[in-house]
Every structure is written in structure tokens, then in C-alpha cells.
């Protein structure tokens, strides 16, 4: 994406600030909503990315998260439920030089829009896709979503939900996404790092943000994001570094060859040494797939940061347009109209 960003204009001589990226529109999320933190973080991060307001576009679907574009003083398009990836794809085909962010939620992106998310990822359109996962439908007042835990009691599931849950990162990797990352709405230091990586990645980058809905699903991520559990429940991934976590930094992730699965180990017990702990390789797809599922039981940490990043030489729209541009001008409309067999009537 950086490579494709338009050259800076004179207006950029002065470095933009977070304020420059905020609109004068009153933000209408519920007080205490996790979306505020994500918005602030985005407004704060963009100046550091050196982008311009005019070259940045936020495209969203429908839902609480999808109100995001209204609060960003860039270009923005609040589209229809689930279809933001499709609209963003068309936008990139019209102008591949734009920096396009797609903002979606667990219902918007994985339920009604699951098909479009799948295809934007597998085509590898150069989009930064942020999925705010609060495991609930907020704007329609609290129904369970595709990421809700089994047994979630909601207006539409008074006895508890039955549907198994989809893991957004596993979904993205299954769709052949080449970039998948995870962060938390309250992680004001971590989130900008992930945004920066996603923005810098050429191709579709998928970011799951664990986000809290204070009204309909408060504390849904509590067991992973509460201050006192963060050290034990979050594995902060760094490419090339050991997968260590825990308050004392003595817990690690090991690959168990017998169970063919990742497992939590503690250095110093059962003859475990630091050598047993896996080193994160963000280009390893199989590892990413296992890391995506890590944390589904309370004994494991959830993997945070860039789980997978496999750079490629091109993107979908670049390939499409390179093809179109290479051919462009070889014929005119007249050539086409006069092609084939013609006859003259005098």
C-alpha cells in the first residue's frame, strides 16, 4: 500500500494531527463503547502513517462499527449491510492509488457479508479490513451473532444460542488471506502497531479487534482483556521471537508432536527450557492456523498481533489494471465497430 500511495501534495508539508482526522460530527456510540477507543486510535495513527486525508477512504457496512466513516475527516462511504468489501473492491478498481480501510463487525462481516469478506480476502484486494468483534448484534438490540459463544442468551435466543461459533482469523486464513492480525480495543499501544502493519501490507489485510459492547454484551472479552488476566491470557506475537507470555514471562507455546497441537508449557517445569518454546514465524501458514484457534479454552492465551503475513508481489487490482493498462489503446471503438464482415450500401 505504501508503494501505491499518491505522492504528497503541498498541503502535506505540515504534518497532520489526530484532530485533522476528526470530523465535526457528534459521535453517537453509547457511552463506554469500545468503538470510541478504536476511533481515537485510528485518528492518532494515521498522521504517523504519513497519509493524506484526501487519499484515505473508509468504507463500511451496517451496524454500530459501520458508523465509523462519519467520524473520520477523510473520504467515507457508509454502504449497506455486509457489502462494504464489494463496494471497496469496485473503488479500488476505479482508483488503485487510494488507501482504503473497510470497517465491519462480526454480524456485518461474518454473517450477512461473509461471502464478500471471503472473496475480498481470497482475491487479495489491497484493503485494510478491520472487523470489530463484540460477539453480539448491537444496532439491532442485542441478538446473538456468528461469533457469540454457544449458549448466549439474547432476545432471539432466550434459551441460549445453539449455533457453533466462527473464529474470524480462522475464517480469514481459510479464505486465503495473506495478512491476519488481532488486537484489542483497549490496547492503545498495541492497536497502532497492528494498524501500521496492516496499512503497510500490500494486499488484503485482515484485523480482528476484540471490542466491548457495553450495553448488550458487556465484558464479553473480560477473561482475555481484564488487566489482571492479560499477561496469562494474551500471547503478544513478534516475528522471530519466542512465544513467551505470563506474568513472569515463563510460560511458552510448544508444538506437541504427539497431539499435533500447540500447548502451553512452563519453563523450568517438566524439563522444559526456552528451547522448547516456538519462535513466531509470521510467514508460516500452518502455525498461523494453529495460533488462530489458540485461546478457545481458558488455559490458553489468545494470540495477539500479526499471526500471519505472507507478502506477495502484486495485488488483485494491480494485476487487473496492469492487464487493462497493457492492452489500453491497442484498438479504438471505431476499430471494434468496423471489425468483422461489413458491406456497403450505395
Amino acid at each position: 500500500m505504501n508503494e501505491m500511495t499518491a505522492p504528497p501534495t503541498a498541503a502535506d508539508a505540515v504534518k497532520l494531527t489526530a484532530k485533522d482526522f476528526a470530523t465535526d460530527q457528534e459521535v453517537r456510540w453509547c457511552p463506554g463503547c469500545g468503538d470510541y477507543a478504536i476511533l481515537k486510535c485510528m485518528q492518532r495513527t494515521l498522521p504517523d502513517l504519513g497519509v493524506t486525508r484526501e487519499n484515505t477512504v473508509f468504507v463500511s457496512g451496517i451496524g454500530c462499527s459501520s458508523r465509523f466513516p462519519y467520524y473520520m475527516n477523510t473520504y467515507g462511504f457508509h454502504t449497506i449491510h455486509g457489502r462494504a468489501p464489494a463496494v471497496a473492491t469496485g473503488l479500488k478498481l476505479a482508483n488503485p492509488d487510494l488507501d482504503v480501510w473497510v470497517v465491519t463487525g462480526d454480524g456485518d462481516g461474518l454473517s450477512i457479508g461473509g461471502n464478500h469478506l471471503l472473496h475480498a480476502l481470497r482475491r487479495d484486494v489491497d484493503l485494510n479490513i478491520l472487523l470489530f468483534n463484540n460477539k453480539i448484534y448491537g444496532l439491532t438490540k442485542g441478538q446473538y451473532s456468528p461469533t457469540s459463544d454457544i449458549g448466549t442468551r439474547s432476545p432471539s435466543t432466550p434459551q441460549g444460542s445453539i449455533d457453533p461459533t466462527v473464529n474470524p482469523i480462522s475464517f480469514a486464513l481459510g479464505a486465503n488471506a495473506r495478512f491476519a492480525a488481532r488486537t484489542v480495543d483497549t490496547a492503545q499501544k498495541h492497536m497502532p502497531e497492528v494498524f501500521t502493519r496492516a496499512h503497510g501490507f500490500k494486499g488484503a489485510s485482515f484485523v480482528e479487534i476484540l471490542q466491548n459492547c457495553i450495553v448488550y454484551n458487556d465484558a464479553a472479552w473480560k477473561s482475555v482483556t481484564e488487566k489482571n488476566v492479560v499477561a496469562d491470557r494474551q500471547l503478544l506475537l513478534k516475528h522471530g521471537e519466542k512465544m513467551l507470555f505470563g506474568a513472569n514471562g515463563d510460560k511458552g507455546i510448544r508444538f506437541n508432536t504427539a497431539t499435533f497441537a500447540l500447548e502451553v508449557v512452563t519453563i523450568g517445569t517438566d524439563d522444559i527450557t526456552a528451547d522448547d518454546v516456538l519462535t513466531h514465524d509470521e510467514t508460516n501458514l500452518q502455525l498461523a492456523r494453529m495460533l488462530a484457534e489458540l485461546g478457545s479454552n481458558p488455559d490458553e492465551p489468545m494470540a495477539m498481533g500479526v499471526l500471519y503475513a505472507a507478502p506477495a508481489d502484486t495485488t488483485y487490482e494491480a494485476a487487473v489494471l496492469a492487464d487493462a493498462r497493457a492492452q489500453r489503446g491497442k484498438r479504438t471503438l471505431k476499430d471494434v465497430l468496423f471489425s468483422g464482415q461489413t458491406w456497403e450500401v450505395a
Partner: protein
Amino acid sequence: MSVVIQAPADGGGDVQILESAVVRFAGDSGDGMQLTGSQFTTSTALAGSDLATFPDFPAEIRAPAGTTFGVSAFQINFGAKNIRTVGDRPDVLVAMNPAALKVNLDTLRPGGLLVVDSGSFTKRNLQKAGYEANPLEDDSLHDYQLIDLDISKLTLESVKPFGLGNKDALRCKNMWTLGLVLWMFSRKRQPVVDWLNKKFAKLPDVAGANVAALNAGHAFGETAELSATVKRYQIGAAHAAPGLYRTVTGSQALSWGIVAGGELAGLDIVLGSYPITPASPILHTLSGLKDLGVVTFQAEDEIAAIGAAIGASYGGALGVTSSSGPGIALKTEALGLAISTELPVVVINSQRGGPSTGLPTKTEQSDLYQAVYGRNGDAPIPVIATRSPGDCFDVAIEACRLAVKYMTPVMLLTDGFIANAAEPWAIPDVDALEPFKVAFAEAPADGADFNPFLRDADTLARNWAVPGTPGTEHRIGGLEKSFDTGHISYDPENHQKMTDTRMDKIAGIARDIPAQTLEQGTQDDTLVVVGWGSTFGPIAEAVRIAREDGLKVAHLHLRYLNPFPANLGDLLRRFPKVLVPEMNAGQLKTVLRDTFLIDARPLNKVSGQPFRIEELLTAIRAEVSA
């Protein structure tokens, strides 16, 4: 075959000169009847005759061979006069197997020429077609001039030198038959030979065998003394306006019109489309035109297809999406978004039989309600319709013009019949077309906030500002917007005003389109026949004949279905009677009644087949004398 207009000049007595003829090729889906028909069309067009074609094929790609539901037919009406329809009843029917005979015999006019491949009239094939006795043997075809030839065997003999397997060799029998029919109508073989050599350039044996079969069929006509029973016919060139001509299908002309529209607007075209019959040829044609600034995107579904078109228009290209009725239904919500955000999108609907999956390969005009009314909320859009393959070019350009000038999605209605049919077309002078260059909005000079919903006082079109432009950053979406600022507004009075404005904007297009005229007749006639879309040909022909018979009947054909031309109400009210023939259950009739409170009378046909002139004439006569 219609009137013999002069005796042959050579006095040979075996060539009749005809004004026009209708030929129908029918066979199994695998018999190559569409190819045979289209090659006969090319030869006929090159001879300068006017023509109209009707490919009539089943929805199944290859239904079980020999069955009646696997029969594929291609009809062509051609003549030395203006040809408006595909012809009510064939003069010549070619039936490649019993099923083709069974399905198509009813259409052949009494006394018509029937060519059959007797080699395919085996017990098994007769059984599959539902014949208890062989119709070639029981005198049941005595109303027709029957030529039964073992075309299968004759073909196999003619291609023997090429050493093809039996199956491949038999595939050449359509070319053998074409050779015979070309002989019958004194048409040249060379264009077909050229085409075969090009098509099978990498398979010289196959090319050679097909050419040999073609030549053998032709030679058979020459030498087999068929002239004892069959006359050869000559159909001259039509008296068309001077110019350079080619044949064109609706899908081709429509695609080229979209390209022309993009050029006239100064915009690249981004087509988002999802495969669907009968709209896919537009995706195929535009996909082959990348060198003309066209980007095509085969989306994951219909919704993504229009979503991408909307995104492209938002980004400063002209977004286009093409589909058929069921696909348009899926696009409906997104269409509402384009209406609400006031972005230009050209939506092409190649109508087919409905509802639901309906009749995918058959023609209907039953999506008019869908086009005019079929959305949530008060959501008006311009709706225009094309009447013939060549007309598609002009209508596509007009759709692009209205879309960018009024910042609105436009629905272009065509149908499966127009999409696949071919006709001679005077190649237009694209340099003479009036440009409608788009000017994108620029940053307000005073540094004020940019309002994307600032409107042109005349057209009511909003500002079109494109991402990438400094100073015009803005947010749009499907929520209601303030008339004054473009920001979200839930204000009741504002919603009333925005709804009114959107309605007024589309209604105002009536001032920007040509006044409605009559195709035939005058305002003093008793009856006006009002049509739209591909019924143009049959209506025009029926009205012409009715007028020759002394009936006071006029023909009015609509291109603009929403809004209607400004003078349409006054014009219709001059006629004591209004008849509206449609290939639906009466949709335009309803819209006309609703708009003008006139007693528009319906004439409806939803059999998947075009109107016959005779059907229209009967209705016209009944209406005039009622």
C-alpha cells in the same frame, strides 16, 4: 414464401426471385443449429438483404439427445424489403431429427418446404420424440413439400477423406445442411469457408471436413436434380439507407454503446457482473474490450456486482452492472443505496421469463414493475428500454448520459430476444456523437466545508466529488442526509424535502428527453398501439398491414418508461382507443392507466415466444371494430 416479384432474368425457370423468406433450422442441442443459423445470417447479410433472427434454444446445455426438450432452433427472416420481425411462420423448416420435427412442424406454413435428415429417423429417435409411426412414411406430412435425405450418411461420405471418428464426422452434418440451404437461396459459401478455417485453424482436419461437408451439401443441391421438386430462390438486397453495414447482436451493440457512453462522459467503465442467462454475453463482450478502457469484474454474486459498480462510481469511474430479472432482484437494496447516495450506475436488465428462475432462455417483458417500482422507500430511477439489437447502441449511450448528468442509477431494459438476435446495422459515426463530459467537484474556494449534496439548480444533480481530490473530503451513505449540509439528518421536514427532491430530479428528466412521436399513423387515427421493447418489430409490421387494409391505427413505441416523455399524456388522449401489447400480464398498461387515467387496453402474451403479426392484427381489428 412471400410474393414472387419478378420472373427470373435468365429464363432458366429454376430460380424464383422472392421478396422475403423465413427459414427455421431445428435440431438437437448438440447439432450446432445456432452456428448454422448464424453462418447463414452472415452470408445473407453480406448479400445485402435485411434480416431479423431468433435463436430459440433450451435452458439445458445438452439435454438428453433426441428428446423434444433438447431441441434448439434458429429462425431467420430475410428479404429485399424492410424486415421488422423474425416472421410468423417459416417457409422452410430444416429438422435434423424427429424431436425437432415434432416441436417445430406446427410453425411451418402449409405448403412450406420441409428438409429432414431421414438418417436420424431411427426407431429409437422416433420413440424418444414420442412418434408411434415414422411420419416420413405415413403420409402425415402431405401438407408440406418434403425433402427427406439421409444427411447423416451423405455427410459421413463427404468427410471420409479426413479420417475423423464417426462422432466427429457426424458433427459436420450441420455444415452439409447449411451448404444445401445456401444453394437453395443462392448464397455464397465463401464467408462460411473463411469462418471455418479461422475457427478450426488449429485443427486442419476438422476445418477441412466441415468445408467438405458444406461443399457436398451445396453440390448435392446442384447435381441431385432437386430442382425437379425444389426451386432455387433469389432474394435481393434490401433498399437500406446508404452507409457501411455489419450485422450486430443486441449484446454487442449494448456493450459498444456502454464503451461509447464512457468515452463521451470522459470516464472509464467498470462493469461488475455475475453470470446469468441471458445477460452473460454483455459480460463476455465487455471483457474483451479492456483495450478501450473497460475493467470487468466477475463478482461473487449479484449484490457484489452492483456493489463494485457503486464503489467504482464513487471512485470516479462509471459503474455498470448487467443481469437478468432474478439477479436484478438481488441488486435491489444496493440500487437503493445508489439512489440515496445519488451515484451514477447503469443497470442493465436482460429480461427473461419469470417469476423466480422462470424461463431462462425465453423472452418476456415482465420486469417493468420491478424496474419502475421495485424498491423499498420512494426510490425513483429513470427506466429506458431498447427496441432492437441495433437500437441497443443508442440506448446504452443514453443510459450513460442520464446517469452522469442526473447522478442517478438508470435501469436499461433489454431482453433475451434482443440480446441474442442479430440484424444489419449501419455503423454509426462515433465522432459525430454529442459528448457529455463529466466535471468533478473541486474544493470550495473559500476553504468552506464541502457539501456533496449541493445541487445543480436545473437538473437537481448533486456535486460529484471523487476520493483523491484535496478539499472535497466527505462522507456519504444510505442514511438520510441533510438537504443543506449533506450530513446525516433524521429531521422529519428534511426527509420530506429530500424525498421530494429525489422525485423531482427524476421527473425533471422528462424535460431533457425527446418528445414522443408516432412510428406510424397520425393523431387523427382511431386506435394507437403502444409498445415498448422488443415487440417493436411485430407491432410495426401489424400496424403497417392494418393501415394497408384501411384501418385508422397508429403505432407509438416508448423508449422512456420513467419518466415518460412530457407530451405523452396529451398525445395518448387524442386517440379514442389505446391498445398495449406486451409480453407480460399487463404492466405498461397499468403504469399508463395510473399515470394518465386513460383506458389503456391490454394484449398480453407470456408464452416465451415473440408476438406473431397475425395475433396483433386480430387484436387490432377487434379493437377498431369494438
